[in-house]
């Protein structure tokens, strides 16, 4: 399995996590399954919206974008595309930083932790690592090839 395949799989898992939180936020799901921490405290805090939209909806868009980029990168014509690898790295790094900032807010401002948000943060960091390895591999391959 290539790193882009792995990125696509992680993004797909993240997509479902973000979808679940978004459905809660818009009222389709009445209560979050939250065995650890206090998801409700986090999801109803003022930090749960960003630029007028639920943070979970931004997460949904983030994972969907990464999924599309990763799947596009599997196509033969984009396999050695440097802009695509760099774009995926930049996007995932931004997502990871944003997730880490939200985790900081949970721990030190809201003082409650939402397990789904933590899972999402771990996935975002994982995506960044995979994207970085993909980009590094492409760079090494180009150097060898060139």
């Amino acid at each position, binding site marked *: *399995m290539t790193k882009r*395949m792995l990125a*696509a*799989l992680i993004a*797909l*898992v993240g*997509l*479902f996590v973000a*979808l*679940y939180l978004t*459905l809660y936020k818009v009222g*389709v*799901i*009445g*209560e979050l*399954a939250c065995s650890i921490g*206090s998801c*409700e*405290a986090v999801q*109803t*805090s*003022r930090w749960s919206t960003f630029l007028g939209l639920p943070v979970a909806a931004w997460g949904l868009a983030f994972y969907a974008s990464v999924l599309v980029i990763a799947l596009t990168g599997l196509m033969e014509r984009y396999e050695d595309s440097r802009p695509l690898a760099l774009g995926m790295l930049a996007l995932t790094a931004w997502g990871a930083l944003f997730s880490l900032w939200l985790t900081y807010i949970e721990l030190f*401002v*809201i*003082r*409650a932790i939402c397990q789904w948000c933590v899972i999402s943060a771990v996935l975002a960091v994982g995506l960044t690592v995979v994207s970085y390895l993909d980009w590094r591999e492409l760079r090494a391959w180009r150097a060898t090839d060139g």
Partner: protein
Amino acid sequence: MTGFLIGMATVVLIGAVAIATLVTKKSRPPITDVDMQGSPSQARGYVYGDTTAPVQIIEFADFECPACGLFATLTEPDVRSRLVQTKQAYVRFFDYPLPMHRNTWDASHAAACADEQGKFWQMHDTLFANQDRWNGEATSRPKSVFMGYARELGLNDGQFEKCWDDRKYQKRIASNRAEAERLHVSQTPSFIIGSKLIPGALGYDEIKKLVTAAAGSPPVAGPTTPAGPRPLMAPAPRQ
């Protein structure tokens, strides 16, 4: 590539089934019958409405709990205008300050001190509508915020401040909390309508249905107004 496709299909399948299960599952804890006999005499709560109305809606809530705030701002206005003002029911509110909320006791004191000046419900509404300005994540010193509300509501701020500083109604709030514990209230908000204890926030339609059902049932003894210096009165019209 085959392994990748199988992996993607597996994630899609598991994710779709999980989401569908969570969307359709009945997540609310079960409604139980409750024994309302033997309430501690101190637990009188705060009443909104005419106590001669046939059904009592008891609410247990924590001023700092977000779900309680949503209920108070979104659903409670309908309950008041369509059930209380039409004398089908009245509301009795019990504080249930939970340990994970840093400023909730302070808020309960603010509400009790406003009650001393006949403005419990105005303070109740203000506290719930502005949770993010005084809760534990907003400040560790909520007193100045509460003082501002007291002034906005036209309370005698000297009297309010002394009451709040002295923790004058500590026993009353503790009694309300003890009543929630005695009845095994497991979350906030929770409601007792008729003889049913319903955990979790309710929508107006659910409350209406429960009130209608309770109105057709024999009355159940509940917390009653204790003999005391100050009778529980229906509140003044809201501002």
